[in-house]
């Protein structure tokens, strides 16, 4: 029997105009981002100009002037790197533990019954409470900050993965059993790919939570890091510094989302058809 040939389409247009059209289309697809950023800057500037006191909102100009100064000081980077390190260590611990517990809870009723109550309770405890508790236990140390970050994001990540494992297609598991796949293959090639989208969404969500809690814990009990900078400049009522640091935070988060998570996600989940709604 002949195999179906993958037919080559004839090349219609010459390649040069096609390339420039592609570039134009690519630029065009980024325009909405640009508009939204310009719109936000305008709104910020208007609001700052309309409010009576400079202690409430700093204007974009003040903020960016301070920011320019900050970016020239090596100290700034030290604070950022310290916070990032705490953040990633805490997040990484939470993601690994959450992946393990969430998977167990999704696959085995025994674990689900044992832990579901505690995971839900963990979700409802405000992160500030965890911050205070860990500071009481660990004092003003690195461990306290990291543990507070891990504990706060752990239930969120667990719940995500748990839901993901529950929603896997059991018909594929049946297929795997009938064809006698090994346990390792079932776990790594049948179950894991189905929960990967949930790993991504939980990472995204988890990192967001970790940032917030990292900053709060650093504000409460640290003498360095981005959170400490917030506390310091807020104490001096310098809103332009508070805004400049916020801006730094936002830029790092955005780069992480668009530059790291989305790129990874697109590569790992390349098999998924595009959603067109």
């Amino acid at each position, binding site marked *: *029997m*002949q*195999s*179906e*040939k*993958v037919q080559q389409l004839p090349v219609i247009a010459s390649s040069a105009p096609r390339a420039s059209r592609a570039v134009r289309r690519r630029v065009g697809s980024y325009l909405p981002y640009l508009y939204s950023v310009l719109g936000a800057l305008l709104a910020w500037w208007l609001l700052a100009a309309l409010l009576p006191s400079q202690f409430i909102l700093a204007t974009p100009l003040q903020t960016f002037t301070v920011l320019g100064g900050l970016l020239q000081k090596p100290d700034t980077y030290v604070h950022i790197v310290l916070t990032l390190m705490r953040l990633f260590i805490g997040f990484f611990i939470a993601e690994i533990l959450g992946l393990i517990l969430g998977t167990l809870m999704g696959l085995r009723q025994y674990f689900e019954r044992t832990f579901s109550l505690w995971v839900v309770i963990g979700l409802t405890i405000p992160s500030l409470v965890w911050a205070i508790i860990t500071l009481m236990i660990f004092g003003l140390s690195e461990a306290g900050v990291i543990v507070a970050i891990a504990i706060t994001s752990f239930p969120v990540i667990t719940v995500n993965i748990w839901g993901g494992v529950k929603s896997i297609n059991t*018909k*594929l598991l*049946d*297929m795997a*059993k*009938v*064809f*006698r*796949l*090994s346990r390792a*293959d079932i776990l790594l*090639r*049948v179950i894991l*790919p189905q929960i990967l989208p949930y790993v991504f969404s939980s990472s995204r969500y988890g990192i967001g939570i970790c940032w917030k809690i990292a900053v709060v814990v650093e504000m409460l009990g640290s003498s360095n890091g981005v959170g400490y900078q917030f506390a310091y400049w807020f104490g001096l009522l310098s809103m332009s510094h508070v805004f400049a640091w916020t801006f730094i935070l936002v830029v790092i988060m955005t780069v992480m989302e668009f530059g790291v998570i989305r790129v990874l996600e697109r590569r790992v*989940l390349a*098999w*998924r*058809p595009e959603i067109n709604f």
Partner: protein
Amino acid sequence: MRLAFQSLSLQFPIAEGGSLPVLDKITASVEEGEFICLLGPSGCGKSTLLNVVAGLLSPTEGSVVIGDVEITAGARALPSGIGYVFQEPRLLDWMSVEKNLLLTLKPLGLPAAERAALIRRYLDMVGLYAFKDTYPQRLSGGMQSRISLIRALIISPQIILMDEPLNSVDAITAMRIRGEFVRLLEAARPTILFVTHNIGEAVYFADRIFLMTNRPTSIYREIRVTLPRPRSTTSRELTELEAEIGRILVEEILPD
């Protein structure tokens, strides 16, 4: 491998309490290398029966013996050497066609060259070798069915369960694949349970046809097909038998 159903019954528990009886005291035995076609109304319990044989569902009463493995209400066992063409393709969407097939071959522990040769041969058989690096979601429904079909055949199983394997493949391609399949069966003689709604397909393949009743299903009648192979779908005996079975289904089974 031989199959022996002894008064096999199965009920599904239902949400509102109570149960839905699906299989009703099925008793039959299937010889090694026999080709059995199951014909019966939609929703009567054909897929359920295959799932019991595959070890995916336990019966409520009775048993089925597969080779030397016995499946009863208490003891669910996964019999080995089974290839199953599920009613839906059930491919792993995150792996290319080739990787899907490699994964099913893995438990056999064959050398790489042999695996590659098998994949080439079976993909050629269904005319899809050019698509070996494609993700399943980028194949048409009928192409996915064909991959699912060869996934079950490629492991040279002793029992093949086939649940409407060609129902989303066009008539001409289906005819070609049927011919290839019959030729393949000359070499190895697995025992086959083949569910279909196509009476012509049933008489083309079967040694025996089980006509199933409505739910809860049991075997209403067995029809032995003794015509020599290879059969021609247009031969007079075949079309007469086809018409007779159609009459039984319409007049005797479907009414209730």
